[in-house]
């Protein structure tokens, strides 16, 4: 049974699993399925528990029945045995009588002897209450017999009809027997039944039958149970015939009748006897016993026991008292009703409860899953909404910023014009303030726009080649004014291992640096701000090595926060190197270190959160929106880098970020990079091979100075004090062309320095070296210089940059002032390369503009065709055509640039579609996919943003009138 259960359970569990997968698939269908399953589970287990109950209770009943049967059989067998013992004894007595009464003459037995004997042997017949002997008397012998006995034979009939009470019983009152063929008067009787002496047994109905049957069969014969004489108890009489001689066992009944001498009868008082018998047995009180005579099947006569028939369990045992004519049986019943089958009840209920519990758990689980899934759906919905809201917010920000920017430009332009008019000092001040505020506002809007773009994921980085050093020079120049005013030293150091040219987004890179430096400038009042650029690989090596650097060993001598702490949290710092050792990606690590007031510890966690500043007072004192760092973080993320910082209040902060660029010296852009190198080298070539001496006691600062001077191709030696300086001069066999002295050293010991300078002039072999003073603050150095009285001294203002340094050196050394090439040189040269021989269509309704634009493009060697209307452009650009590009004015009468572009693109698409189907490429000039680059021309750069143009099917835009650099940038995207 348990196996079955287990099967059931496991099959259910399989179903559950199976169903669970279904559930994931089709939710609605399976919901009803679940319910059905649950319902059938409950029903199934209810049925099962009922079955278990039935099974167990039937088992109990069976057991009970068995117990009853065994008990009943036991009783019946005992009764039968005892009866047989009694019967045997009575038979033995019959032999005794035949021997001693009939065998002897005169008889050896009289009534007294018999009574005594029987009384004393009564224990041998436990079931008999009395024994009597009747003799066979023929009618012919009656008189003689009566005379001999001294009493008449009496009859029994009336007695039976008028039963009398025991006490009143008087045999003398009985009537004498009427004349019969033969009689069987009792002559001997046990005392207890002595009242039957002289009564003719043949006169009683039961007795007569019994007697006749007994002598015929020669065996013990039983009467049906009847009320006994005198005692009136229910009894059975056993009768044995006594024969004159021994008869063979196969004697005929007639022979037997003839040989009959008398009849011995034993009275069995069944009731009391059975009672006595049952007394001896254990657990008598458990069962009720009935003994019945069932000779007549339809009217069984009860011999013992109450006849209150109980419907309950009954067992019948058959009794054999040795009389084949009579049939007896014993019926046993339990006294008590069967007890409640508690075991079955508890078992089945237990199983049911378990099943229900399992069902409940199951149900709860399903509900739970459904609920969780619903919740999940809801959450997803909410998430979608939230995201949509976020996008909407970003779009709103972008739109609003854009919309604000346009009028703001007007405001700024007007203010600018206003400044040119005749204003008095106060008015000018107001206008200046207004313009400054306006510029701040535009800057803020640009930042917000950036943030919005980043958040809406629209910001994409450019992939152009750029010179990192030049970018940093530009940034440095932006801040140099501020730093000089405040006396903060600005410096940039780029490791030699960083390649000249990188490919990436210089604008965004610059934005990050500007943000970080801007912050540093804001919060730094003394000391320095140092930007260092290294390859990640370099820094990793130095992590272990560079532990001895003391906090004093810094650019300005102020302690700084250890920048190595700031990149500790970088995730893939160590992996990066191993990840791309073979590719041409360049992993840069850039640190901006300042000696400002630092970020309070409690604010450090939200530094990168947008619009979060350290405290409200900060924005009052320093301005700004707090959006810069957040944007920087996003930009760094876009450059596949990480940003981190370490900041110690009152000491300073160091921000460090990594960025991944591509090496710019890959083959495809070699030409261009060559161009740029030529340009940058043109500054430095004139100093190539010169030698310089830097005198600076601070290694870090000396390193920075050396970096910048080396960029010009000058060989650099660093000394820390005057002594070393002089010694290097005296031993040097190579001429030293210039000496650069830190202002700090100079100021410290004015006398000795001027002395040394004078000495230098003397020792020197050829031309005396030029002496330069590296000064942080222009004003102070000038005054000092004048006081020192050394005329041969040039001040180089810090921060050091390649261009300013070169200019200063040029001025002082007088090396070939060949003049810098124009800025426009590079793009115009390249433009010529790109545009030479290209067929270009220009569309503008303004004749002057048209002519100028055409002239410009012709100058670069392009083959220019002009059109004044959008319709014309469409006709000309209907494929097949030979145009390489189209420049289109946006605002034109009749049909504007966007509309014309739309139609051209439609046309191209149709033709591309046809081509795709017909494959007749030849007819279309073997151009497989028509898409002529269309560039918008607009005077209003702000209005016609790149995105707008792209959205309208254009490929880019150029400002009008053409700006060589921008033109190059746009055009180079299409013509390689």
């Amino acid at each position, binding site marked *: 049974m348990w196996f079955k259960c287990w099967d059931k359970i496991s099959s259910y569990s399989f179903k559950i699993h199976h169903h669970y997968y279904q559930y994931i698939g089709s939710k609605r269908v399976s919901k009803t399925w679940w319910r059905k399953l649950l319902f059938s589970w409950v029903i199934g287990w209810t049925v099962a528990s009922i079955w278990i109950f039935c099974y167990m209770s039937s088992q109990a009943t069976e057991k009970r029945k068995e117990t009853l049967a065994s008990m009943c059989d036991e009783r019946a067998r005992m009764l039968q045995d005892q009866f047989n013992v009694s019967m045997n004894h009575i038979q033995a007595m019959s032999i005794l009588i035949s021997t001693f009464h009939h065998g002897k003459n005169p008889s050896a037995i009289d009534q007294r002897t018999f009574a005594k004997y029987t009384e004393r042997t009564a224990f041998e017949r436990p079931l008999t209450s009395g024994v009597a002997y009747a003799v066979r008397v023929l009618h012919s012998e009656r008189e003689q017999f009566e005379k001999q006995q001294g009493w008449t034979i009496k009859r029994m009939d009336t007695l039976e009809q008028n039963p009398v009470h025991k006490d009143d019983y008087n045999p003398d009152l009985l009537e004498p027997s009427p004349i019969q063929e033969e009689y069987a008067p009792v002559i001997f009787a046990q005392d207890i039944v002595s009242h039957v002496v002289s009564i003719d047994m043949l006169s009683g109905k039961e007795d007569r039958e019994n007697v006749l049957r007994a002598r015929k069969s020669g065996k013990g014969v039983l009467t049906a149970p009847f009320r006994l004489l005198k005692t009136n108890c229910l009894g059975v009489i056993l009768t044995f015939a006594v024969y004159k001689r021994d008869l063979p066992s196969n004697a005929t009944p007639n022979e037997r009748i003839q040989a009959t001498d008398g009849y011995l009868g034993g009275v069995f008082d069944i009731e009391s006897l059975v009672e006595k018998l049952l007394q001896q047995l254990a657990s008598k009180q458990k069962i009720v016993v009935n003994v019945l005579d069932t000779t007549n099947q339809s009217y069984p006569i009860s011999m013992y026991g109450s006849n209150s028939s109980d419907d309950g369990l009954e067992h019948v045992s058959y009794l054999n008292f040795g009389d084949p004519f009579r049939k007896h049986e014993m019926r046993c019943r339990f006294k008590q009703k069967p007890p409640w089958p508690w075991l079955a009840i508890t078992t089945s209920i237990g199983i049911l409860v378990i099943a229900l519990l399992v069902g409940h758990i199951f149900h709860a689980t399903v509900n739970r899953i459904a609920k969780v899934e619903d919740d999940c759906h809801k959450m997803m919905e909410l998430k979608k909404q939230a995201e949509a809201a976020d996008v909407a917010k970003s779009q709103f920000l972008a739109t609003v910023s854009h919309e604000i920017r346009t009028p703001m430009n*007007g405001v700024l*332009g007007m203010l600018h*014009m206003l400044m040119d008019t005749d204003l008095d000092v106060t008015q000018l001040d107001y206008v200046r303030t207004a313009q400054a505020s306006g510029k701040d506002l535009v800057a803020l809007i640009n930042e917000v726009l950036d943030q919005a773009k980043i958040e809406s994921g629209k910001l994409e980085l450019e992939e152009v080649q750029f010179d990192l050093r030049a970018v940093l020079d530009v940034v440095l120049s932006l801040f140099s004014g501020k730093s000089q005013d405040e006396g903060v030293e600005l410096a940039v150091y780029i490791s030699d291992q960083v390649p000249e040219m990188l490919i990436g987004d210089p604008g965004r890179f610059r934005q990050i640096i500007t943000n970080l430096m801007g912050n540093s400038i804001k919060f730094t009042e003394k000391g320095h701000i140092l930007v260092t650029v290294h390859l990640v690989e370099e820094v990793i090596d130095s992590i272990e090595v560079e532990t001895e650097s003391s906090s004093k060993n810094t650019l300005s001598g102020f302690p700084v926060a250890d920048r190595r702490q700031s990149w500790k949290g970088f995730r893939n710092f160590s992996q990066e190197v191993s990840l791309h050792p073979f590719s041409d990606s360049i992993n840069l690590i850039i640190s901006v270190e300042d000696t400002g007031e630092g970020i309070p510890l409690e604010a450090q966690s939200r530094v990168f959160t947008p619009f979060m500043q350290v405290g409200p007072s900060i924005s009052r004192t320093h301005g700004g929106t707090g959006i810069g760092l957040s944007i920087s973080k996003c930009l760094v993320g876009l450059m596949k880098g990480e940003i981190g910082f370490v900041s110690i209040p009152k000491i300073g902060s160091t921000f460090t970020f990594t960025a991944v660029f591509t090496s710019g010296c890959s083959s495809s852009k070699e030409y261009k990079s060559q161009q740029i190198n030529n340009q940058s080298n043109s500054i430095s070539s004139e100093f190539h091979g010169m030698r310089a001496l830097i005198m600076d006691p601070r290694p870090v600062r000396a390193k920075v100075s050396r970096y910048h001077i080396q960029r010009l191709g000058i060989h650099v030696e660093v000394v820390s004090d005057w002594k070393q300086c002089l010694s290097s001069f005296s031993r040097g066999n190579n001429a030293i062309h210039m000496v650069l002295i830190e202002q700090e050293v100079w100021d410290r010991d004015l006398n000795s320095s001027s002395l040394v300078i004078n000495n230098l002039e003397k020792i020197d072999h050829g031309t005396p070296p030029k002496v330069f003073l590296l000064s942080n603050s222009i004003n102070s150095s000038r005054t000092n210089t004048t006081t020192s009285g050394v005329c041969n001294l040039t001040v180089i203002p810090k921060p050091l940059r390649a261009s300013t340094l070169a200019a200063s050196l040029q001025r002082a050394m007088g090396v070939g002032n060949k*003049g810098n090439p*124009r800025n426009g040189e590079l793009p115009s040269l390249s433009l010529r390369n790109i545009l030479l021989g290209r067929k270009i269509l220009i569309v*503008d*309704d*303004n*004749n*002057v*503009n048209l*002519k*100028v*634009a055409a*002239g*410009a493009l*012709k*100058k670069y060697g392009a083959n220019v065709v002009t059109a004044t209307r959008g319709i014309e452009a469409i006709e000309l650009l209907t494929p097949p055509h030979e145009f390489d590009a189209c420049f289109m*004015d946006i*605002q034109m*009468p009749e049909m504007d640039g966007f509309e014309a572009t739309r139609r051209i693109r439609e046309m191209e698409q149709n033709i591309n579609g046809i081509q795709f189907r017909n494959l007749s490429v030849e007819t279309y000039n073997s151009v497989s996919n028509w898409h002529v680059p269309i560039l918008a021309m607009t*005077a209003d750069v702000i209005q016609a943003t790149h995105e707008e143009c792209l959205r309208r099917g254009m490929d880019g835009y150029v400002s*009008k*009138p*053409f700006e060589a650099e921008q033109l190059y940038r746009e055009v180079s995207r299409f013509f390689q």
Partner: protein
Amino acid sequence: MESKPLRQQISAMRQSFFDEEILDEQFTQLEQLQDRENPNFVEEVLNLYFRDSTTLIAKVEQAMETVPIDFPKVDKSLHQLKGSSASIGANKVRNEVTKTRELWQEGNLGGAKAAFQDLRKENDTLKAKLEPYFQQLRQAGPDEAAMRPRRSHNG
């Protein structure tokens, strides 16, 4: 050699345009577009401009005076004028056009008309100044035009 004073004169004249801010950098770019293949490019463009601007100014004036004022027409013409003047680098004219157009767009008719008169005046001045310049240039010969110094307006 005889044209040397003439050249100096021309150069001084040209410089004065920039000093007075009648012209701006765009003009130099225009000059750079001139070469042997296209010896009179600047003059051609300028002539084109003067022709166009005269028509446009007339158009604007007319449109401003007609009783149901045609706002878009004026705006369109001003836009064209703005583009043209920007293309040749006529700094002052462009500024005037911008001013006029903005006033016009604001609906300040009086202001716009006044500004428009300034515009016209500036344009006339430009014309008056440039015409003798080109005349002298022609006299100096084509070589001079082709050899317009490049570094003259640098920085």
